[in-house]
Each structure stands twice: as C-alpha cells, then as structure tokens.
C-alpha cells in the first residue's frame, strides 16, 4: 500500500497506526521545551474551563493524539492531584475518505472502563487542519455513548478548515499555506519532540 504520511498533515489525515520515522527536513516551529510549555498551559486551561476537571476524560486520536492525551492527563494530575482517565479513539472506520485509498490498518480504541456517558470528553489530536478527522471522531463517539460535552484540544492549529469545527484548546496557531506540511514528532512515537514545517515535495513528500 502507499504508505501514509507520518503525521497529520493532509486533510483528513491522522488515523494511521503505522508510524514511520519521518524525515527531519523542514523548519522547526516548536521545540521540545515549547511543546512542554504548551501542554502545561492546555492542562491548566482544561482544569479552569471544566472547574477542576472532575468529570473529564481525555481521548487521543491515534497515532500522535494518544501520547498527547496521556501527557495532558499527567499534567492535570500534577496540578489537581486527581487521576484523569484517558484513552484512545480510533476513527479509521468513520473516515469520509476511506474509498479514496486502499484499506488501512486500524488503530486502537480504548475507553476508560466507566464509559463516557455524562462525562466531558476532551478529544486530543496533534494537528487540526480540515476538521474531517474531528468530524469522524464525533461520529465514533456517538457510537460509544452520550457525553455531557465534547471539547477539542490540539497541539497545532494550522487553519484551512473545511467543516464548521473549532478547537477549545490550542498549543500553537500556525498560519500555513495549503502546500506546506506540518509534522509533529513525539518522543513516544518518533523518539524526539518537535513540530516541523516543511514545503511539499521534500523527502517524505505528500502522498497525494
């Protein structure tokens, strides 16, 4: 199969489990310390907006949303002292572009045992682009239960929405052109933390 992009740079991307080591080409827009500061700030914002994060469940969208959700959960726990349930929500089967590419491998959906009914679910992803991944995630949530509210946290918002979707928590707003590629690298998946901005047609290339 045509191997998909390493991070969520394309419209409707972000559901690939096959984590390929991305190339380091591109300009660094966020470094390790900045990513860490952004996540700490988001953790605080979540606590503030949800009044103590008592009812919060963090669900990361594979691949890179999952470690981000775990880091946010740890961040909230550090401040509030209470454990925050976190898990993953695979959206592959809910994508709207399934028939445009060969069938893909599935990611893991792991919801905390108490379920999501009546809770505040915070969806976590690395890059927000077209909004199609988030739409698919909302459909997937619908089949899991009925949360009291759903919010969205992303590390990078690169604009170019194709659907009426907006994030509640943003690590960094990154103005981009359509042809540019945003790559998020995380230690858990890629061995290092960085956000890179590259032009199309560099080493990894856009798969379209």
């Amino acid at each position, binding site marked *: 199969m045509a191997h998909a992009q390493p991070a969520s740079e394309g419209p409707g991307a972000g559901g690939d*489990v096959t984590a390929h080591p991305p190339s380091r080409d591109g300009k660094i827009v966020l470094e390790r310390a900045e990513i860490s500061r952004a996540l700490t700030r988001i953790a605080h914002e979540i606590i503030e907006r949800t009044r103590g994060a008592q009812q919060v469940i963090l669900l990361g969208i594979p691949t890179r949303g999952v470690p981000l959700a775990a880091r946010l959960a740890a961040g909230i726990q550090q401040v509030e002292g209470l454990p925050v349930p976190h898990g993953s929500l695979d959206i592959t089967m809910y994508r709207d572009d399934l028939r445009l590419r060969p069938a893909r491998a*599935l990611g*893991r959906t792991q919801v905390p045992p108490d379920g999501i009914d009546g809770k505040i679910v915070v969806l976590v992803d690395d890059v927000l682009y077209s909004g199609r991944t988030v739409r698919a995630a909302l459909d997937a949530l619908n089949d899991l239960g009925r949360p009291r509210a759903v919010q969205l946290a992303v590390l990078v918002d690169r604009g170019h929405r194709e659907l009426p979707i907006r994030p509640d928590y943003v690590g960094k707003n990154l103005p981009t052109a359509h042809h540019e590629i945003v790559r998020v690298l995380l230690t858990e998946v890629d061995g290092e933390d960085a956000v890179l901005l590259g032009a199309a047609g560099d080493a990894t290339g856009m798969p379209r």
Partner: protein
Amino acid sequence: MNRHLISAADLSREDALRVLDTADELARISDRPIKKLPTLRGRTVVNLFFEDSTRTRISFEAAAKRLSADVINFSAKGSSVAKGESLKDTALTLEAMGADAVVIRHNASGAPHRLAEWVHGSVINAGDGAHEHPTQALLDAFTIRRRFGRSSGSGAGQGGALDGLRVTIVGDILHSRVARSNVLLLHTLGAEVLLIAPPTLLPVAVDTWPCSIDYDLDAALPKSDVVMMLRVQQERMNAAYFPSVREYSRRYGLDSDRMAQLPERAIVMHPGPMNRGVEIAAGVADSPRSTVVEQVANGVSVRMAVLYLLLGGAEEGQ
C-alpha cells in the same frame, strides 16, 4: 491483498497478519452497546450458498451487517438454480444487481475461481467442495493466536505469528476443505502442521502439502500445542473408508483419556458441526480446553476484517 479471497494460499504472511490484527481491533466492538460501524454503508454483499450452512452463512451475514453493508441472502433451494440455472447466469444476475462482494459456498471445487472471472466485485470463498475454506483457516489461526497470547497486545500494533506452535489436524482430511486451507495458512504463519488420518482418508498428493503426515494419534498428542478434530463427513462418503464408525472413533477419536495426554496448555479445536461420540467425545467438546464456541464468535470478527480489507478501501487501479 488480492481483490478476491479464494484460497488461503493467496495470503502472504503480511496479509494474514493484517487480517488477524484488524480482527483483533474489530473484536473489541462486540463488547460495545452499539455493535455497528458505518464503514461499508451503501455497499452490497451477496451470500450465495449452493450448499447447506448455518454458521458460515450467519457469520458472514452478521459481519456484513455490523459493517453496515446491505446483505442479500441467496440459497440455491427455492431459487432459479433449482430450475436449472447455471452458475454463470446466476453470476450475471448478481452482477446486474450491483453486488460489491459475493460470498460463495458451492459443492464444486473451483466454483469461486470461475465466479471471479464473471463478476466485478470481490469473491470470497466460503467453502468449495473438498477444496478450500480460507475464512475458517483465518478464524482458526485467530483463535490459536488469542489462546496462546500472541494477539496484538495493549498498544495498537502487530501481533505475532504462530512460529514454533505444533498443530495436529486429525481425521477426514480427504473430504475436508478446512484441512487444506489450514495447512496452507498455518504454514504461512510459521506453525508446524501434522496430519493424522487413516490412509484411506488422505487425499492424493497430500505429500506435496507443507506438513508432515502420520497415522498414530496417541504418539502425536504429547507433542501437540493444538489438536484440530475434523468432522467425519458421512454425507460425502459413498464408499467404505473405514470398517466401522466405532473403530474409527477408537483409533482417531478424541476422548478424555486421550485429552489427558496433551501438554498442559494445549487446546482442542473443531470447525463444527461436531459428531459428538465419533471424532470428539462430549466431555472433550465441553471442556475448557475446547475452543469450539470461541471459534464461532471469532468467526464474525475475522469475516468483518476480511470484508473491510477487501471492500473498505479504494478499488485497485482507481
């Protein structure tokens, strides 16, 4: 993966592991309140059954419905096949109805292969004569992998293959499509397969299969991680293959005494339907080592994975 699934030999090791990993994830949705995914919405799956079947047909139907496909069931009884319509004309009818996938069971070996030349959709072999039954082999491999703790674990990713496991398949190899598909697939996945049968129930050229052959069940049991008992297919036997059912049962049946010779973590499998008291004793079939019921449950997940991988993505060449 190919567009069709006709033989277990069509699957490379990578393909097979992909099906099993996908099935691992899909198995988890059967624990959810809403056991349905929208993935194959608007696609049509035709179940074309020229031979009686309960579990395979229901299993494919459940799998297709859980993926939101439209399912058309077609059984030869009470259809124009009973009036003498040929397979080709039936195929053209299905084609005209726009079937995206045809699941076919036929008493003639090779029927799915012929069908694949006549229809545009994917053809999935659900058993053709004494030839092959690839989804049964996949669900057996899936069941073995789970029982031996080799499925994709806590993190998403690839589960292991079956390298080093010793699988003994016992009984009516001659009439069994399950045996042939299992030998091919289990070999692809790295297991060592041993066939045990009376010489009269071994097919011609079985020595070319990627497995070893023996006639002594008692000698094989202590060395087996998995024992797969096959059904004695009396409906396909028009000659005397063994002196009496009772003698067959004594020499090749799995009873409690024989089960006790198995290593501690060995499992007992049967593709069903079972002849209790012939190839498998009731006490063995109902023991915790038996995976018969699990195999049925796993069948739905595995067939969902096959349907998803064949139909879920873009058609090749698009």
